[in-house]
């Protein structure tokens, strides 16, 4: 039985529609434009205060629920202390990395003065609605000097980089997003590699191109390296949780737990001097 002309026409129309939509998806990827499109930027700026208010309310409700379900053990003070400890641990790791770097540089009779980059504190106001992408929106944008590519950190370590900016907000690509890649090195051995995200909601990073012969063990710290164009060197990225030896090839895969609890982000620091334009 031959298909009727009417059915064929309909099938072609559907096919054309799908192709136009797929083309649209490809043309509107974040890597194609430095700024958000005008409509998207306007929507985000208008929605930002509402999102901020709802986010804060949910956070308060969540803290209240955590307090009740933990039978009073999970208080705001405990949370604050936990955050402080995470920050201090990050600081210790960073200082160790700096000391290590200093030692190496001194050995080469060259000194490097660390520059203090201008930065700005921003609050997280929303997250990507889907489960595929790991992005958060912060309440600082172009008007505050935030530019695409700016590094985003917390005292505990690397958070990500600015993906798109609007007037009053910016979208931050978290290091757990599958599109993220950060030039890093194992702090203990200075073995370089590229840290990639695996999945938005997961607490797992993958370090690739780690040379097989170099020793990397569980518990080792991974920090940003001088190979990274976006991040200053020595900022903690994560801790090694698993090392996967490949049977063939020159490299092994190292799995990390991010230094920052990216599911509980509240405030972040945007380094204003680290944009890529």
């Amino acid at each position, binding site marked *: 039985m031959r298909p009727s002309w009417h059915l064929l026409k309909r099938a072609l129309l559907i096919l054309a529609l799908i192709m136009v939509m797929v083309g649209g998806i490809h043309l509107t990827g974040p890597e194609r434009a430095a700024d958000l499109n005008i409509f998207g930027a306007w929507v985000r700026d208008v929605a930002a205060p509402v999102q901020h208010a*709802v986010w804060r309310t949910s956070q308060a409700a969540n803290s209240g629920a955590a307090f009740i379900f933990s039978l009073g053990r999970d208080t705001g003070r405990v949370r604050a202390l936990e955050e402080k400890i995470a920050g201090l641990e990050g600081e210790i790791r960073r200082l160790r990395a700096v000391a290590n770097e200093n030692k190496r540089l001194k050995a080469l009779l060259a000194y490097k003065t660390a520059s203090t980059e201008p930065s700005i504190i921003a609050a997280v106001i*929303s997250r990507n609605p*889907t489960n*595929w992408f790991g992005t958060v929106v912060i309440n600082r944008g172009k008007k505050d000097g935030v530019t695409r590519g700016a590094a985003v950190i917390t005292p505990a370590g690397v958070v990500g980089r600015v993906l798109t900016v609007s007037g009053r907000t910016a979208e931050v690509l978290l290091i757990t997003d*599958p599109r993220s890649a950060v030039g890093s090195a194992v702090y203990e051995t200075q073995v370089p590699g590229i840290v990639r995200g*695996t999945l938005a909601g997961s607490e797992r990073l993958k370090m690739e191109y780690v040379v097989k012969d170099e020793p990397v063990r569980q518990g080792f710290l991974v920090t940003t390296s001088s190979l990274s164009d976006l991040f200053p060197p020595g900022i903690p990225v994560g801790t090694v949780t698993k090392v996967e030896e490949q049977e063939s090839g020159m490299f092994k895969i190292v799995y990390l737990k991010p230094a920052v609890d990216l599911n509980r982000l509240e405030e972040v620091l945007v380094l204003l001097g680290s944009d890529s334009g």
Partner: protein
Amino acid sequence: MRTFALLLLITVALLLEQTVLNFLRVAGVKPDLVLLIVIFNGILKGPREGALWGFVAGSLEDFACGHYIGLNALSKLVAGCLAGLVEFRVYKESVVTAAAVVWAVSFISGGVVYLLLLTLGVFVAPSDAFLRVLLPVAVYNALLSLLFYRSFHRATFYGFLREERY
């Protein structure tokens, strides 16, 4: 009125997905409320309207994200249409049937997103995609449908989502 109410419902669901639902993650995922509305609407109104509202809801989500415009529009269009195909084939009043449809359609819709992401060069390991996104989201959505389907059904035929007749 129905159009306005559905748009408002989708906007509120989107706002919740961006904010509150991040605190209600189970197994690392949050439910897709917008998809839930699209599937409910498809089951109750058929493939044509299901696809149309899937496209509208997905487009709103895409514009809220700001990039990859069409990614959610296409996946939710497919979801709405598929859910609508069961309109005359199943007993629509059954919450359990609705949950089963929600589970299957959520899974397929997630699969469409996964395939589109591959064409964009965004690689997620198949095991991660299956075990950490597709399956848990489908289960989470199906469980939520047990709670909300009856209310949506009532609203569609007797409440604020019913069609006006002049």
